[in-house]
């Protein structure tokens, strides 16, 4: 596979990034964001359309998985909890959902042990965190959207 050394000179639309603080603003307390956008940007090479597509896929898949998790926790089906939480944690970790993953890992752990002791509460916390992720991603994608009337990329 011999390759031309010239790297394709295509520009991609600007990637969404977390807003940077103003230089004169007081330093905020360090708070972990729900989504590490660097991973999403890296995986899509900063292409806004690819990010949007991947985010849509993640949100759809995770919505279904959370519904399955809720049903499994209610029915006390430990192995189902383990299996779904494991899959959901893998995708979430891949996309940099840093605060969501530990909750899913905890559900996976309880599922593997067969004792869903605090699984209902952990599930509730995971569902709340997922809402925050949805809001965060919506804000990020809106900030990257082209202005009305702009030519499509």
């Amino acid at each position: 596979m011999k390759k031309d050394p010239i790297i394709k000179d295509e520009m991609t639309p600007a990637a969404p990034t977390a807003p940077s603080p103003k230089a004169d603003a007081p330093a905020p307390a360090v708070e972990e964001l729900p989504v590490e956008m660097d991973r999403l940007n890296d995986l899509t090479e900063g292409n806004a359309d690819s990010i949007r597509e991947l985010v849509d896929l993640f949100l759809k898949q995770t919505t279904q998985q959370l519904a399955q998790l809720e049903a499994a926790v209610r029915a006390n089906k430990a192995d189902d909890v383990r299996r779904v939480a494991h899959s959901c944690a893998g995708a979430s970790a891949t996309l940099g959902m840093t605060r969501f993953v530990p909750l899913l890992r905890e559900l996976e752990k309880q599922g593997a042990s067969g004792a869903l002791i605090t699984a209902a509460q952990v599930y509730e916390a995971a569902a709340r965190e997922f809402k925050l992720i949805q809001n965060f991603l919506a804000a990020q994608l809106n900030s990257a959207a082209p202005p009305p009337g702009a030519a499509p990329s």
Partner: protein
Amino acid sequence: MKKILIIEDDQIVANVYRNKLAVEGYQTEAALDGESGLKMMRTFQPDAIVLDLVLPKMSGVEVIKEIRGEADFSKLPIIVFSNTYLTNLIQDAWKAGATKCVSKINCPPRELLDLMRRTIGDGEAVSPARPTTEGAPATQPARFTSEADAEFQAGLQKTFIASLPATLVALRAGLQSLIKSDTEVARLKNIHELYRRVHAVNGNAGIAGLVQIAHLAAALEALLKELYEKPKNINTSTLRTVAATVDFLGFLFEHGTRPDKQEIPPASILVVDDEVISRRAIIYALEKAQLQSISVEDPNVAFKLLSENQFDLVFLDVDMPGMTGYELCTKLRNLPLHKKTPVVFITGLTDFDNRTSSMMAGGNDFIAKPFLFIELTVKALIHVLRGKFQPAK
């Protein structure tokens, strides 16, 4: 006479390019960092700039922004050298106003010359003379014949190959310092030093036309850059990958300089993961090294594919419905085609028991989710390149 300014921190690389361009009738100057490059640009008034993106003091992207901010140079052609594994850096270079981005991995001097001719036209006609590979610009420029060009390139390669034993000693010393680092500050300093050394290997192997060495060095450079910029990713897995890469570079220094080892060989890779986003991440990481793959979600489908096809490398998720990755690995080891095919497990399960299961099932390597994309790229490159040195199955 057309004038070219080269801004490149590796003096050997800069001089080789200067030499090549000078003998073709271009007037050249070189600067070893961005700040002095900008100063030189204002006095030298070049027709084009060749710029390395990785520079001390001031980054290549910052240099481009400065150049584009000056009215006299806003349209000056800027040819950027970069590492194809640093995709975000290349994006930044385009946005800042680079004219062309060129991969250091496969840009011997002849390629740069051709690109320069297409960009600003020929240098002035000059009398024939042979160029040197000693590093100093030729004082009496001369056009290359193809024979002289081949001789020039062979000289470059010979010089580079002769330097490899010393380079390996330096890389191993850098790795030892990194592994023994006892504070976070020391670890970061050692990562940066190793990164600079590997950056130099990438550039020098690229101009010498040693593609496999240049590729692996470029991927390792990108991994080290990621670790330096995001130290939270420094862990046992990533450090183990860095060490394995330095080790395999040593192997390539000895065996990867043959003429038949100057391309990334086509490889057939199978990815088995029941989760779509993880599959996508693995495929993306492989594509960084131009490695094509087939991905499947069902381990039973994967086994059928493995039964009927040769693969050079297999990535397996561990926890899959119907058949675990360990079970699939055990089964594939019974297939005549895959007794020795490298298998890498990818999973969130990182405890010792699972590592043991991985080895007992016949796996060769292990990477934990969430993996760094470039770490997976580096692992894949090592396995694919190493596999091509094995006797035919």
